[in-house]
C-alpha cells in the first residue's frame, strides 16, 4: 500500500521538480545535517546536565529552557527538509526498512522528550545531581543512544539491502 502511494507520489509535479533540480537534494541534505548537529547536541547537553556532567552551576530548568527550543526548532526544520527529500525519492524511502525504523524511533524520541520535559522541568536545584533518580538518568542516557541510532538509520537508507537483507521492502 505504502509502495503504491510512493510510486504515485514519485510521479507528482513536486517530486518531479525535486528530481529535476539536482541542487535541491544536496542543499536540503546539508540543512538536514546541520540540524542533526543542533538537535543531537541540544539533547546531549540536557542529558549531561541530568547526569551532572555539565552546567551544575545552573538549575536544570535553566539548561532545559536554553536547549529545548533548539531541539524543537531543529526537529521542525528536519521534519520539513526530510519531507521534501522524501517527496523527491519516495520509492527509495518507502522500500527501505531503515526509513520506517527511523520514523518509528523519531516518534518514540519526540514523545519521550515531551514526557521528560514535562516531568523534569519544575526541578530547580542548583548543582544537586541527586534530584534525578537512577531511572531518570538511565532514560536520559537512553535518549542519546536512541538519537545515535536514528542518525545511523538515516545513513543506512542508502544501504538498505546490505544492512537488512531480505527485510528490505522493495
Amino acid at each position: 500500500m505504502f509502495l503504491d502511494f510512493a510510486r504515485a507520489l514519485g510521479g507528482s509535479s513536486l517530486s518531479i521538480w525535486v528530481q529535476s533540480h539536482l541542487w535541491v537534494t544536496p542543499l536540503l541534505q546539508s540543512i538536514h545535517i546541520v540540524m542533526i548537529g543542533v538537535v543531537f547536541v541540544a539533547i546531549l547537553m540536557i542529558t549531561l546536565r541530568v547526569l551532572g556532567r555539565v552546567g551544575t552551576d545552573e538549575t536544570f530548568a535553566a539548561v532545559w529552557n536554553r536547549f529545548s527550543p533548539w531541539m524543537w526548532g531543529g526537529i521542525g526544520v528536519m521534519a520539513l527538509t526530510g519531507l521534501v527529500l522524501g517527496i523527491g525519492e519516495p520509492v527509495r524511502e518507502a522500500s527501505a526498512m531503515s526509513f520506517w525504523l527511523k520514523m518509528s524511533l523519531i516518534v518514540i524520541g519526540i514523545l519521550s522528550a515531551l514526557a521528560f520535559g514535562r516531568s523534569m522541568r519544575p526541578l530547580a536545584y542548583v548543582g544537586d545531581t541527586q534530584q534525578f533518580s537512577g531511572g531518570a538518568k538511565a532514560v536520559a542516557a537512553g535518549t542519546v543512544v536512541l538519537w545515535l541510532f536514528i542518525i545511523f538509520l538515516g545513513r543506512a537508507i542508502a544501504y538498505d539491502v546490505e544492512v537488512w537483507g531480505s527485510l528490505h521492502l522493495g
Partner: protein
Amino acid sequence: MDLPGIVQLIHDSALSEWLRSSLKAMPIVEAIHVMTAATVFGTILVVDLRLLGWPGTKRSFSRLHGELVRWTWGAFVISVITGVLLFVVNSVTYYGNTAFRLKMLALIFAGVNMFVFERVTGRDVAAWDTGPTPSSARIAGALSLTIWVSVLFIARWIGFTKGYDFSIPDNVNLDLNFGQ
C-alpha cells in the same frame, strides 16, 4: 614519491580493497562520521554562540568551554579516523574532487581560527569571562560558525560530485544514483 602516487598506493592497499568489498562496513563508518561531525559542530556552535553573546554573557566562558572541549576533541578524533577510512575507500576520486579539497581547506581555516583564538584572543579571557565579549572574540565566534557550517555543506556536496572509482552493486543506492 609524489602525492598522486601516494594516493594511488592508498587506493591499492589491502585496507582499501577490504572496505570496498565489504559494503556492510561502509554504512557504519559513514554513520559514525555523521554522528561525530554533528557532535563537533553542535558543541562548537554552543561555544560560538556564547562568544557572540547568545543567550547571554553572565555564565563563565571558561567553564562552558572547559565542559564542552573534551566532547569536541573526542568527537573530532573519531571523525578524523572515520574520515580517513572513507578517503581510503575512494582515494583517487576524492583526491581529484574540488569539493573535497575545499572541505580540507575549510578545516585548515577552522584550525587557524581556533589557534589564533587560543593564543591571542583567549589569553585575556579572565577579563571578560563573565561579561561582554570583546569584538575580537565575537569575530572569532562568527568566523568559526561560518567555517563549520561551510564544512558541513561542502562535505555533503562531495557525495554528489565525487563519483566512485569502483563499481557499486545494483542493490545499493548511493547519493550519486540520485536522479539517474
